[in-house]
Every structure is written in structure tokens, then in C-alpha cells.
């Protein structure tokens, strides 16, 4: 409680911030950021609706709405409800989960260049999944295996970084090392596989929401439903950690327990997304930067902005990959090829600012 009131000083509080009292609890509410969330959600819904009309069988918007509300029963209903809607929802949910995971890891280690793709979490999922693919195991279990791989890798990174405490720089370097080992092992598996399995493995490790099912939607939706509230609740602690270990301890934050909780939430968000869509690159790295740039330093509401922007990015990238290019490419290629150069620029700026 102390920590919440410790951060905003009256002089620096922007005019858009209101204090709302609900029973015994008081909240700071930034109306500007809330407006952004609303606007981004409207854009997201519009983009989603547009995505539902696109495809080899083009549908007018009215037909899509009819299919969704059940007013229409024919092919359009099947196409919209069973083929396109799961893909659109999966893209949006996966994007949100990845972006939020990135925000948590970046805050946790106090470094804006970190994400689950860089410190090995996603490499763990990839290694497990590729192992599963090249050994010809049943594919329905693939998401479970990928999830387990990510969680086990995070546990290993956490334990290897532990030296009485978790220091950000150490966690990053250990993560890079673990990432290198797992990437090498994954390459080893791909090399030994036959070309079809190798191609499938490469597709998986690129990240794609192709042929997403309602089952995928349910998995990511469940992950988000459980972890987003936890994440929002932990954001004040994340802000305190930003100030420095000494300050965080002096305001009574149980530092290592909070860090562990943040690692768990960040890992599970990423693992849930990667389990159904593969490691879609650069989303977790990039989106938190954009969110901070337009909405200000990380907080509960900016965390939500991050999620919505992540959803927008992955959905948009998937639409580009699916419809705008002469050949359909997985969404991970689009986020990597388009997002990466932009990220280089962000990264340069982030370094000059820190």
C-alpha cells in the first residue's frame, strides 16, 4: 500500500490522472490511457472484422455479421465461425500474451532489450516442440510439450541465475547462454530429420497461426484470463523494482518473491502463446516499447495497452502474411522481417536514453 502512494508525487502527476475511491481502496486512473485502450480496442475489433471478410472466399461485412449472430446458416457461417474466427482470435490473443510477457521481462530485469525470445524461454519451447516433431510423436500433444519446454527452461535459467538473489544482468547473460545451447540443439535435430519433418519444424519455429482451432483459442484465452489480472496486480511491484533494489526493499517489497512471481507470470504468458502459435518473433521485444512510447511508463493500464497493441500487431501481421503477399507466409516471418528493422531503431534509441 505504501508503495502505491510512494510513486506519484503531486508535481509530476499529469492532469489526466484521477483518483477513484472504491470502498477502502483508492486507485489512480489515467483517463488518457483508458481512452487509448478504448480506441485500440475499437481498432482491434474493426481489424478483426475486416480479417473475417478476407480470404479466397470473400464475404461482405453484412454476411460476416449475420454469420456471427447466427442469422445466416450456409457456407458463410462455417467459413466465418469455424475457419476464420479461430485464426483471428488466436492471432489477437497470442499477440496480447507475447507482448505482455515482454513487458514483464523487460521491467523485471530493468532492460528494455530483453524478451522471452532472447533469454531462452521460447528456445526451450522450440527445442521441445521440434524434438516432438522430428521423433514423429502425435501432434495433438505438441502444445503441451512446447509449454512444458518453456516452463522447464525458465526454471533452469532462474536457478542458474540464482546467486543469493536474481540480478538482472546475470539473468540476461545466463539466458543468452541457455538460448544458445537450445538453439544449437534444435539445429542439430533439424539437420538429422528428413526434409519434410525439417520443413515442418522450421515452420513451427517461425511461428504461425495457420489452421488455428477453437481448441487453440481456448488455451490462450484461459492463459490470458488467469494471468492478465495477476499481471495487472503485480504492475505496481514492477514499477517499484524499476526504481532500484534498495528502494524496493526499503518500501517493504519482498524483492525475490516478487521477482519469482513476475518470472512465473511472464513465462506462463509466453509459454501459453508459444504453445499454440510457435515463437512469433519480435512481438514481445517490440510492443512494450511502442506502448511505453505512446502511453508512458509501465503501469496496470499501460500493461493493458501493451496487450491490445500486441493483439493488433500480430493480427495485422497475419493479415499481411496471409493476404497481402503473393505467397502466404507465416506470421512470424512478417513480424521478423518488418518488425526487426524498426526494432533496431528502437533499440538504438533505448540505449541512448538509458
Amino acid at each position, binding site marked *: 500500500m505504501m508503495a502505491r502512494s510512494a510513486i506519484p508525487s503531486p508535481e509530476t502527476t499529469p492532469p489526466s490522472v484521477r483518483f477513484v475511491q472504491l470502498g477502502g481502496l483508492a486507485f489512480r486512473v489515467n483517463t488518457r490511457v483508458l481512452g487509448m485502450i478504448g480506441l485500440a480496442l475499437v481498432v482491434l475489433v474493426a481489424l478483426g472484422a475486416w480479417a473475417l471478410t478476407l480470404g479466397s472466399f470473400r464475404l461482405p461485412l453484412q454476411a460476416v455479421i449475420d454469420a456471427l449472430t447466427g442469422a445466416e446458416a450456409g457456407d458463410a457461417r462455417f467459413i466465418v465461425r469455424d475457419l476464420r474466427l479461430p485464426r483471428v482470435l488466436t492471432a489477437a490473443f497470442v499477440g496480447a500474451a507475447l507482448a505482455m510477457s515482454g513487458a514483464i521481462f523487460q521491467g523485471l530485469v530493468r*532492460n528494455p*532489450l*530483453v524478451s522471452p*525470445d*532472447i533469454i531462452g524461454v521460447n528456445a526451450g519451447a522450440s527445442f521441445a516442440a521440434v524434438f516432438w516433431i522430428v521423433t514423429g510423436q502425435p501432434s495433438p500433444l505438441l502444445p503441451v510439450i512446447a509449454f512444458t519446454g518453456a516452463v522447464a527452461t525458465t526454471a533452469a535459467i532462474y536457478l*542458474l*541465475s540464482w*546467486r543469493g538473489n536474481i*540480478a538482472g*544482468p*546475470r539473468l*540476461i*547473460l*545466463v539466458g*543468452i*547462454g*541457455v*538460448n*544458445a*545451447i537450445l*538453439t*544449437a*540443439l534444435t*539445429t*542439430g535435430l*533439424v*539437420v*538429422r530429420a528428413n*526434409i519434410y519433418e*525439417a*520443413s515442418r519444424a*522450421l*515452420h513451427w*519455429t*517461425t511461428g504461425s497461426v495457420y489452421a488455428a482451432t477453437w481448441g487453440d483459442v481456448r488455451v490462450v484465452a484461459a492463459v490470458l484470463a488467469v494471468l492478465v489480472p495477476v499481471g495487472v496486480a503485480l504492475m505496481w511491484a514492477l514499477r517499484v523494482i524499476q526504481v532500484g533494489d534498495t528502494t524496493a526493499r526499503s518500501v517493504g517489497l519482498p524483492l525475490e518473491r516478487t521477482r519469482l512471481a513476475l518470472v512465473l507470470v511472464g513465462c506462463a504468458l509466453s509459454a501459453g502463446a508459444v504453445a499454440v502459435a510457435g515463437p512469433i*518473433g*519480435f512481438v514481445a*521485444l517490440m510492443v512494450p516499447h511502442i506502448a511505453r512510447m505512446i502511453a508512458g511508463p509501465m503501469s496496470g493500464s499501460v500493461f493493458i495497452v501493451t496487450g491490445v497493441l500486441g493483439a493488433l500487431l500480430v493480427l495485422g501481421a497475419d493479415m499481411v502474411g496471409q493476404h497481402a503477399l503473393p*505467397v502466404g*507466409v*507465416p506470421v*512470424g*516471418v512478417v*513480424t*521478423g*522481417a518488418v518488425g*526487426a*528493422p524498426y*526494432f*533496431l531503431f528502437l*533499440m*538504438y534509441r533505448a*540505449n*541512448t*536514453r*538509458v
Partner: protein
Amino acid sequence: MSRVTSAAPAPSTVSHRGALPAAKLGVTLLLCVVALAVVSLLSLRVGSIGISNSDAWHALFHFNPESYEQTVVRTLRLPRTIIGLGVGAALAMAGAAMQATTRNPLAGPDLLGVNSGAAFGIVTAVYYGHLTHPLQFVWFAFAGGLAAAAATYAIGSAGTGGATPVKLALAGVVVSSLLSSWLTALLLLDQQTLEVVRFWLAGSLAGRDLATFTSVLPFLMVGLIGMLLMGNQLDILSMGEDTARSLGMRTGRVRAVVTALVVLLAGAAVAAAGPIGFLGLAVPHIVRLITGPDYRWTLAYCLVVGPLLLLSADILGRVVARPGEVQVGIVTAVLGAPLLIALARQRRVAEL
């Protein structure tokens, strides 16, 4: 508390730990050369087909094309060993030079993105330009490696505090992952290219064309000899920019020369064998345990210990998965990355 007091005099005492007098260093270097000869011989002998000493000897000096064993040595094991000798020396020396110029214990051609830049350059050249001859695409390897290293260094050293190990390592990883996502995009568009390139991308000494190696050999030799001559400069540069300048060194010029040599070495190595990770990071650290901070000795040792370790890793890769093989790039990453983790756990590095 005790940690604080023991860490205080670190710069002078720690770096000199293990340094031997010149005579002993010379003898140890000779021992390393002997060990390298033994490992090279083993590299000719060990594999899915065992080769006897006499067959290896005859294959080298009295080659009899009728003999199956001698043909194996001549056509498979000998090219592989020669490439291993060159590539190991190149990567190790490139790593040592980068650690000296950046004053960064985590520098190396792979962590700074040179390897993935060179790999990206080559794959792009093969895919778009349909270039087939190594002499054509080696230039793309150099260009890619140079561009990636420049980008990594520009990003990693931006801002206050300059290039700290963490900033530099992160910038390198991000640049590498950027390049690999572009590479993946190319590969997904064309299964044919994937089929050709995936073996090469794993980084291996096996199945490599000796012609590729001989065509990059001039670059390699220039790089190796040039770097050996730079030992003095690296010594001075590793004391820091200010000290080097006050000693009268034109640091900008020296850095440019060293960077060019590093790109020559790493680019040639990648063109010959594919990206082999962590050798350039690990060998200088191991070597400095013997030589201490003197870069003239460090470079000379790298020239010998680099191939020694690379060939050992290659032999290990042949033995662990019989009758198949594990690519040497995978072996070096799996054995070398723990060194990175160990370095990260050292208080000195993580707090830089």
C-alpha cells in the same frame, strides 16, 4: 564483505594470475603444438571407419588410390582436418582481438553477430544471385559480417557507459535473431534452398569442399599473419582508449585495422565451415589462464589452441552419436555456452 576486499585489487592481480615466464610459455606452446599434431592425427583416424596409423601415414605421403581406407583419409578426413585447423585458428584469434579492442570479456565473432551476418550474406548471395563459386560469395560473407558487427557495436555502445558486456551481448543477440528471422523467411520460400543450406547453417567441418577452403585461404592467411603482428597494439588498446591515446597510439586507425582483420578471419571461417559458435569466445579465455594478459602470447596460443579445441570438438561429435555425427557447431555451442553462463555468474562480469 570478504568478497569486496578480495575484489578490490582485481585489475592487476587477477589478470596476471597464472602468467608464466617467457621461457616456460614457449615450452608450453611447443607442448600445445605437439598436442595439436596428435589431435590432427586422431582427426584422420577416428570416425565411422577406424583408420590405422600406417594407413593415415601412407595416405599422406605414399597415397595408394586402391586402398579404401587411404581414400577415405584423402577425400574425407584430410580436407576436414585442414579446414578445422584453419577455421579454429581464425575464430580463436578473431575472438581474442575482439575481446581486446572492446575490452569486453563476452566479445567474440558469434556474440557480436559477425558469424550470423556472414551466414546471412552467403545465403542471400546463393538464393538471389545464384552464386556458386566460393570466391564470389566470400565477399558477401565479409560484407555481411562487417555490417552485422558494425550494427551490433553501434547499438551496443550507444548511450552512457559505452559498450558494457550486457549491452553488447544483447545487441549482438538481437542483431543475430533479426538476421536469422530474415534467413528463415528466405528458407521458407524455397525448400530447395533449405535442403542445401540447413547442413551448412549448423556449422560443420564435414562434407565441406576443400576448394572453398583454398579459395578463402589467402584471406585467412592475411588475417592470421596480420593479427599476429598486431599483438603489441592489442596490448596497448586493451588498457583502454585513454591510456592508449596518451601512449601516442592512433586508436581509431588501429581499431579499423583490427576490425578489418577480424572480419577477414571470421568471414573466411564462416564461408569455409558455416557459423561455428562459442569457439571465439571460449578459446581466448582458456588461453589467458596460461598466458595472462600479454596479447602477443595470447594470439600465438590462440593460433594453436583454437584448432586444437575445434578438432577435439569435431572428433567428439563423430564419437557421441555413432554411426551418425553431431555437427561441430552444435558441439562447440553446447560445450561453450556453459562457459558464458559461468562468466555471467562471476560477479565482475555481471556488474560491468
